[in-house]
């Protein structure tokens, strides 16, 4: 019994130590965002600012007039991408799971094959296609290519395969067509799967760096990760500003994570274990 208690304490020590390792960089960044430049340059290990100041947050919005714009661009892109993915992936997943149309198997196989192709491979041709469409430096260039996702089409298909058929049959008897059944009956009941999708698609789009870097050259159109990178280049030793900007950028993603946390673990397990 005594040895068991010892080993449990040891486990707690490891867990707490790892929690500190995880949280310390965030705490350190957060604290820097409330410190003055003088205090930061002086060094020192205190997590609590000597004099708490909100000046860094004011400065980034005033000195970098595009900061608000970047925030807005990121929000527009991430929200549109999320909504389109929820709609399109669910529709495709439903068709693959439930509708016997010619080519059903072929499309399912193609989607599984596409799952294996990493995004970096299609980066340059995608850039060339967007260039010839005249979509560089536009919202549609940022949004449309990311509006469907093979992983989540696959996930929705698996979800709908296990969905009770009786509900749809009842809806069909009530005279609802395929579309009516899907939008009025099926989709409202798919909330857990949609929530898991929301969190992944939103974060993926919110945090995406490489694709925006390639297709956006106009600072007005930058999303926040690009803005942050440009900001860092300009204010290289003003870590108080850079950390304040980083914290503002992290907040919305954290809010989404906190709100959907329950579905998040479920989604990771799905995309991980069964993808």
């Amino acid at each position, binding site marked *: 019994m005594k040895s068991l208690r010892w080993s449990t304490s040891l*486990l707690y020590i490891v867990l707490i130590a790892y929690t500190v390792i*995880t949280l310390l960089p965030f705490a350190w*960044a957060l604290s820097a965002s409330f410190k003055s430049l003088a205090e930061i340059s002086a060094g020192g*290990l205190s997590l609590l600012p000597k004099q708490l100041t909100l000046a860094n947050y004011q400065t980034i919005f005033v000195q970098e007039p595009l900061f608000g714009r970047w925030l807005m661009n990121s929000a527009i892109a991430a929200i549109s991408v999320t909504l389109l993915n929820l709609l399109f992936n669910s529709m495709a997943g*439903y068709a693959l799971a439930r509708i016997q149309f010619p080519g059903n198997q072929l499309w399912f196989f193609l989607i599984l094959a596409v799952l294996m192709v990493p995004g970096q491979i299609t980066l340059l041709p995608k850039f060339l296609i967007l260039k010839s469409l005249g979509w560089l430096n536009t919202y549609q260039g940022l949004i449309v290519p990311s509006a469907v996702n093979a992983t989540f089409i696959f996930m929705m298909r698996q979800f709908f395969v296990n969905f009770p058929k009786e509900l749809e049959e009842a809806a069909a008897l009530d005279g609802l067509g395929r579309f009516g059944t899907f939008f009025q009956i099926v989709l409202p009941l798919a909330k857990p799967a949609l929530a898991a999708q929301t969190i992944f698609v939103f974060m993926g789009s*919110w945090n995406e760096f490489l694709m925006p870097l390639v297709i956006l050259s106009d600072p007005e159109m930058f999303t926040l990760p690009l803005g942050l990178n440009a900001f860092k280049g300009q204010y290289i030793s003003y*870590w108080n500003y850079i950390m304040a900007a980083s914290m503002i950028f992290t907040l919305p*993603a954290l809010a989404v*994570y906190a709100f959907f946390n329950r579905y998040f673990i479920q989604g990771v397990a799905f995309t*991980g274990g069964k993808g």
Partner: protein
Amino acid sequence: MSALTKDRWRNRKAGDSLAGYLFMAPTILIAGVFLILPIAYAIALAFQKVQLLGDVSYQFTGLKNFVRIAQDDRVWIALKNTASYVAIVVPIQTMLALTLALILNSQIKGRSWFRVAFFLPTVTSSAVLTLIFMWIYNSNGLLNGVLSFLHLPTYNWLGDPNVALKGIMIMNIWSTAPLFMVIYLAALQDIPETLYEAATLDGASRWEKFLHITIPFLKPVTFFVIVMGIIGTFQLFDQSYIFSAGSGGPNDSTLTIVLLIYQYAFKNLDMGYALALTLMLAAILMTSTIIQRTLFKEERLD
């Protein structure tokens, strides 16, 4: 079947074909233009010299781009950096993920709280994480602060080519391990409790149960985690780019394959060559995926 039902049946089938393709239309259109077409495009253009300035023009050059890869010193530097990155990050993050998952899977109080905390880096953007770590490694940063507090010599961490890539490795392990931890946790919860109970009745020790039940059960998910890790680390870009302001420095020490592709495509405007490099990366990634699938299949047949 009467003529009427036959007719209705045919109508229903036709309706289903139409509905099926209407439901699939957005996916087919978007994936066709931005996924399938690019793959074909990439393969075709890798054998050409592409002129990007002004009107885009192409000139067929055969295998020239691929011959150039073999003679390009920077390709070898990028390959070497990326390979050492993969070789160090993947084993450590996999073992760390497994260890954390095993601890959280034991009946411990507050495990969901720990899980939420551990996950924080995984949901944070790579741009922000890189900036936070640069701030920690900075000459006035936390790392030097701790060192001088302990009366140890401080150091210019960001400027040393021997240290820069290791700094990114540490950050990557720290931010990715929790993701794989959750995948391991899900797998651990799938192991039937009855197996452990039976082993206990047979007098097996905790260590024996771990060795003969847990480890074999986790084999497929371990393959998955390792291959996902390899694919993820081979694609390293954001951190290197932000860290080195796009140069891959100091002294090419953070130059990765994807960063090199980016530089050739958008700094040197040498799109055909960049695409040939992309195909090389694709070959590496596909090979590791195929190896995983094959091993995984054998695993399932057992």
